């Protein structure tokens, strides 16, 4: 009945719902699939879990070319071929040419670890299906050595997705799903206080007001995220911008908006707002 209770860390504030989702996934030994807007702290979540539960963190960054097999192990034939050619090494032991990937390492670890599979939707559509068996059974077979590896300690698996591709149903069925909603004003205030502990209350209020106003503009294509807001506040403070000038203008807007169209749209909306 004991749970690995994830509670969040000093720098990572986890909402109660998120904490529950993490703990359920750890208790049921099912992967936790985390989805949400960019900048809502999906990747950092895995780091926070590792820090909080004092476990090692293994990260597998998925690219468009990633294959499921690479996560388990790669048989380095070229190296073996090379060694064979020059004859300066004993090449009969195949296991020395088996290079374990992050997934394989997490199964082989001598204690429970946290495995982050980052941005799974970057890979090919079939990629998640190729992982089903391994994630379900937490074991894998190395063809070349004929050895079957079973995880002694089932890792806590965190999978993040940006929703670029739809994930297969069979894969989803095996996951615990959590959607990180964009933080509301009160939550955002707490998050900012973690990063800027000594920010002036008045500045903070003004900034938040502007920030959520920006995000609500329907013309904006790429909405600014938490990390951009934190950068913006840093820029404002370092630039010594007064609270009044945030009210009247939008200094350092480039930190928040990265697209020219969006910048123009914001400026236009801002002018409209002042006329009204």
């Amino acid at each position, binding site marked *: 009945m004991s749970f690995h209770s994830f509670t969040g860390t000093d720098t990572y504030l986890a909402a109660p719902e998120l904490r529950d989702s993490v703990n359920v996934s750890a208790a049921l030994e099912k992967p936790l699939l985390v989805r949400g807007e960019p900048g809502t702290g999906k990747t950092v979540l895995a780091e926070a879990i590792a820090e909080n539960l004092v476990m090692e963190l293994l990260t597998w960054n998925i690219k468009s070319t990633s294959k499921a097999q690479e996560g388990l192990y790669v048989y380095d*034939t070229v190296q073996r071929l090379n060694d064979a050619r020059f004859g300066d090494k004993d090449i009969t032991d195949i296991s020395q040419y088996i290079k374990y990937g992050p997934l394989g390492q997490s199964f082989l670890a001598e204690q429970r670890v946290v495995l982050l599979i980052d941005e799974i939707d970057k890979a090919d559509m079939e990629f998640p299906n190729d992982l089903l068996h391994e994630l379900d059974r937490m074991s894998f077979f190395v063809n070349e050595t004929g050895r079957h590896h079973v995880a002694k300690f089932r890792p806590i698996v965190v999978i993040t997705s940006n929703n670029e591709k739809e994930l297969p149903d069979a894969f*989803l069925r095996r996951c*615990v*799903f959590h*959607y990180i909603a964009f933080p509301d004003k009160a939550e955002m205030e707490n998050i900012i206080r973690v990063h800027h502990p000594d920010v002036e209350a008045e500045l903070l209020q003004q900034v938040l007001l502007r920030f959520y106003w920006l995000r609500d503009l329907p013309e904006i294509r790429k909405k600014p995220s938490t990390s951009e807001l934190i950068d913006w506040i840093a820029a404002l403070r370092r630039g010594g911008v007064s609270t009044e000038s945030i009210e009247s203008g939008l200094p350092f807007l480039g930190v928040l908006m990265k697209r020219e169209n969006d910048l123009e749209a914001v400026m236009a909306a801002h002018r409209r707002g002042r006329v009204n």
Partner: protein
Amino acid sequence: MFVDFFYHLRGYGLKVTITEWLSLMKALAIGYSRADLHVFYNLARCLMVKTEADFDNYDRAFASFFMGVENHFDISDELLEWLSKAELPRELTEEERAKLEALDLDELRERFKELLDEQKERHDGGNRWIGTGGMSPFGHGGEHPTGIRIGGSGGGRSAVQVATDRRFRNLRSDRILDTRQIGLALRRLRKLDKDEGPEELDIDETIDSSARNAGEIDLVFRPPKRNRIKLLLLIDVGGSMDPHTLLCERLFSAAHKANHFKKFEFKFFHNCVYENLYTDISRWKGEATSQILKRLDHTWSVCLVGDAWMSPYELTHTGGAIDYYHTNQVTGLDWLRKFRDRCPNSIWLNPEPRRIWNAPTIHLIRQVFPMFELTIDGLTEGIDVLRGIRPNRALAA
């Protein structure tokens, strides 16, 4: 019965499976819900709802299920035991499972409607879910041995209240789309095929082959794969389509930016297709429709976008075109049929919601083209027709 919740969720269109339900049971069995409906709300959601697009449906299902009983409802350990032992195994026999799979969705929905109606009528003294003085284990003042009444979750707002907020309404997938979402949907519109053209180096095969060749390099080539979808987009502009301009623009720009089509063309029309199609929105520059038709063949897919809302004359009569000075010799409907006959993998996307598709002209057009809503779900369905995976099934005449 607790298992009603499972059917209730499915009745709301959530694709909850037995595997997921079992996971929930397991989590409950090890005491996870902490006897709190609030925690249960999140627990059930994270195990059974796998996309934020369904969160709103889940909220509605949850609220309607627990509405009114929340204050008398408690998932205490005793109940959990009762739940996990007494009722579930019976529900999960192979036979039951097969039955569950075989159930038609509409039938399921009917059953739930019946159940709900029934519940409304027999509010007291029943042995069902919601009620007072009944035999159900949930509720208060009942006589079920394990029925317990305990107040709602302490502090804050109740789970049902949270659920009724419908915070995730904006994440529904049947709402209107933005460009990126359309782009994502359009990515599915591909049909890969081995193509002629310069061959590519197949690195994996080359390594394998070289290894087999005792290290002597042996290069292996393969023909490249290309998307062979050719798409013609025809968009209705002006008049009744004005409110949908933004949406059509988004569809247009997403399709325009998608560079994975073998060929992509677009034309505009007003209300219905006649002798000319236009290359600009103001409908000045045109091209003869017959010329365009000549270019097309069955490898093209045609996607028409419009509200299909017009006077029947515009479809069925010669000279019925909406523009006063325009006298068409061939009826609009015949022009549409020509497109359909030439390119069977064609669809009509309608920006109006399905529930108001009741104009006579909409009915006529649906006999020619399968019609889909211009939403993510509609687009996704329609794309299967465009790809030729699903047969073009227009309404039978």
